[in-house]
């Protein structure tokens, strides 16, 4: 098995059951080689689906977490909160991560057929494993 230079978790953490989140992050962090990178991208607070869910979907206790009609979960992240929780969960698993980059990405998506302007907001974060 090769050593892992980078782990990609793209719109995945938001679908993890809250009670398993820390274990998930810990396992993923442990899989990275020292010096390797954890690449995260996920839904952010204020993303359009969150605003839609607020009207229609089932909102779960640990806000802002929603359950879609098909039972899959969608969580929307505050950037600082996400970074803090990733580093804490990694630390609890004995892995030292340093956040090398974190930002909100705002993407304007146009649906010309339906004359819709969709404002998507994502969190983008990179962590380097230091120990």
């Amino acid at each position, binding site marked *: 098995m090769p050593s892992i230079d980078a782990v990609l978790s793209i719109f995945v953490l938001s679908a993890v059951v809250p009670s398993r989140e820390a274990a998930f992050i810990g396992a993923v962090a442990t899989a990275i080689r020292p010096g390797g990178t954890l690449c995260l991208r996920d839904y952010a607070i204020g993303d359009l689906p969150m605003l839609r869910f*607020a009207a229609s979907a089932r909102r779960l206790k640990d806000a802002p977490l929603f359950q879609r009609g098909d039972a899959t979960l969608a969580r929307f992240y505050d950037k600082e909160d996400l970074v803090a929780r990733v580093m804490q969960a990694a630390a609890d698993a004995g892995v030292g991560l340093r956040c090398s980059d974190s930002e909100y990405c705002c993407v304007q998506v146009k649906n010309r057929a339906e004359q819709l302007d969709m404002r998507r907001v994502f969190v983008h974060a990179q962590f380097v494993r230091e120990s």
Partner: protein
Amino acid sequence: MLAEHGESLATCTDVEPVDNGWSDAAEQSSAWSRFYDRHDTAPFFKARRYLTAEFPILMQTNGVTVLEVGCGTGSSVLPLLEANPGARVIACDFSASAVAAINRAIKKAGASTFRRKMMALSGTDAAHACRRSAVTLLLVRCRSVIARKAAAVRGCDS
């Protein structure tokens, strides 16, 4: 743009929370399996071509090894391999249907000779498995035929 969301956000957080709990991990696994059972003929999500620009490590040319936890039907993995033929990707997902869909996409691109071992596990289990060096879910070798095909399409095949 975040500021513009402020007002609607305020409305959003006023929603009364439901507190009868969320489905557990096993239910989530089957929920995502059902999702990909329904959406396995074509990639449900658009190809994420921005990833290699957003995460420079993915473009390292010295044979970077990437583990994707939660690969879906390949919206990240396939563009990554196109962009970086030297990359090696291990991808896994909750859903066996999703992993099967990636394998079909690879086969379609002519990569049938790659070593492919497939198993669908939860993300957590997959990461544990990688650590234990026990399971390779989907190993797409470097010098991918997908990448060569892409290069040919762009007219720069060497």
